[in-house]
């Protein structure tokens, strides 16, 4: 019997290896769902301030690749016409009230957008997790009735100046959507933000979030809901839309 045991263990190893998912592969599948080549979307941001008053901001956005995007606010009236253009690492903001284009950089990128729990970085980020983080699977849990992998992500050594140096994410095992994220500062213990996908939709063969929830742990508000009203993938977007000159149009 004792001679058979090693063979049994060896025979079972492929199955054991199959049961242990590859964290990088999980990230690749998440990126495939979440990162778009190009997209055009309409969304509503529901912000509840410290006085318990709710503000709804609707916006239209266009994105191309991972580092080019444009967001235009459609309502309320005070915000209408405000645009945010991201070109590589630079973010430009245009407000029709002042007819000014202002560059937002450095620490301002991590400021709240319109009093929400999203930062400007959160708002325009379309980067791949796989390019930025090393990941490890740390367990499996059920979240919102879905069986999830639990991954711990750490920023790669060559990645500097990143908003969230560490993340813990709960990934739907069959849809590969990060249903919950805890986003941490560099020390790995200071929780900065909580992100949840509360409702999903299927567009073609892609699962995509329909309702997201952001909570800035350091802020006093009640969190921000981000509702994707409509989204189209792989659309043709004219290049001129992503220029500073087009912001004033």
């Amino acid at each position, binding site marked *: 019997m004792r001679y058979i045991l090693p063979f049994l263990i060896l025979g079972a190893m492929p199955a054991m290896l199959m049961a242990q998912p590859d964290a990088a592969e999980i990230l690749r599948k998440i990126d495939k769902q979440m990162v778009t080549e190009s997209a055009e979307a309409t969304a509503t941001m529901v912000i509840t*301030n*410290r006085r318990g008053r709710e503000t709804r901001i609707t916006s239209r956005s266009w994105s191309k690749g991972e580092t080019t995007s444009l967001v235009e606010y459609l309502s309320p009236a005070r915000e209408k016409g405000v645009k945010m253009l991201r070109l590589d690492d630079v973010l430009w903001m245009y407000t029709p009230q002042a*007819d000014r284009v202002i560059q937002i950089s450095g620490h301002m990128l991590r400021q709240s957008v319109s009093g929400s729990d999203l930062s400007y970085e959160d708002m325009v980020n379309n980067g791949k997790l796989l390019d930025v983080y090393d990941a490890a699977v740390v367990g499996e849990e059920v979240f919102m009735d879905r069986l999830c992998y639990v991954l711990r992500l750490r920023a790669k050594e060559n990645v500097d100046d990143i908003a969230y140096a560490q993340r813990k994410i709960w990934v739907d095992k069959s849809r590969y959507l990060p249903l919950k994220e805890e986003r941490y500062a560099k020390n790995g213990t200071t929780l900065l933000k909580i992100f949840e996908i509360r409702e999903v939709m299927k567009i073609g063969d892609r699962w995509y979030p329909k309702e997201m929830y952001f909570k800035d742990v350091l802020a006093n508000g009640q969190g921000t809901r981000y509702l994707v009203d409509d989204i189209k993938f792989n659309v043709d977007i004219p290049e001129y839309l992503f220029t500073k000159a087009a912001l004033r149009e």
Partner: protein
Amino acid sequence: MFRFLMKGMLRDKHRSLMPTIVVTLGVFLTVGMFAYMKGVMGDMLNNTAQLESGHVKITSLAYRSEIDVLPNDLAMDNGPAMMAMLQENYPDLAWSERIKFGGLLDAFDKNRETRAQLGVGGIGIDLFGPNAADRERWNLESGLRAGTLPQKPGDILMAEKLAGNMGVAVGEEVTLISATVNGSMSLQNFRVAGFIEFGIPPMDRSIILADLNDVKRMLDMGDWSSEILGYFPIPYYDDALAEALRDTFNVVHSDPIFMANDTLNFSTNLDHDDSIDRFAPYMMSMLDDSNMRDYYTYVDKAGSIISFVMIFAMGIVLWNTGLMGAIRRYAEMGLRLAVGESKGHVYRSLLVESVGIGVVGTVLGTIMGLGLGLYLQEVGFNMGDMMKDSTMMMPTIIRARITPTAFYIGFFPGVIATLLGAGLSGLRIFKRDTASLFKELET
């Protein structure tokens, strides 16, 4: 006898002139320093009242709990109704609304691209309304260094040094970048009507003044009010008056549940009781605002200690003058005793002389000290060069202040110390042995 003493005093300069000069100088320094100390303290309080906190200040409870970070999103609802109520129920005080905020001031070129950008502190005051008393409170007319005062909505005043640092000219359009009370980024263009010098270095480096309604519009505040300041019709801060008003106002108008708790644990009480109306008004006295009470107590104590040391030191000097005077006249005392004058009479005449010298010196010293105080009160002492890098909210011109106490404070060292000195040294008169007086006089 009196004539004899007077003649003696006047003819002997060492008995009259020198002690009187010493007493005069001592009292002059005491009175002058006292007025100066009072002036420095009073200037700081007046500046704080005029520019920062009023004699009393009303905010919402929630705003008060985070007042250091200027939480305009926690301002009081329905500011106009609150102002009307205050003017009706407390007509003796002048009421004035303020909004303080932070932001970036952006100067741009002809292509509307950023040319210079600096962090600024913004203050919204009533520049055009019926309560434009703030123009006088801020001394805008005399502080104006270039351009004009704001003429219409959309005009602002910039601190002269701030404008110099940014290279902004009068009449130029600039963009103020701030955040609305909902947290949205707000960009608003303003015309720089003029440059102003506040005379307070930290303000001269970073402050812009705008009309209250422009600021409300920019911050999307509607009719909310962040801070309402109240001024008693007296030119100085009276803590007892402010505290009495604060206590009665809060009992009547603030949240009763909050007021029933220990209001010292402000944030704790507010955060842990949902039944409290967080936006109910709350009045604080000037010294409650920004923990100034501790500072005031500290400065007041320090001022008292300095005054005491000054009076004590002068007392020692003048006491010594009395001692020296009496010792120097050792032989004279002996002679007077030898010719039959009683010891008690000699001692009393010594005391009378010292009181006379003390009174004359004190009156002269007080007049001179008050003169110096009056000069420093009217003209002031310009410390601008020394304070150019200062971050303290202090005016560059330090002024003295003559208070009723300044009229009599010199009498303590001037008369009492001189009298004590003479009295103590004069006690030796009673130890003189009459039989050996002539023997002593021979030497």
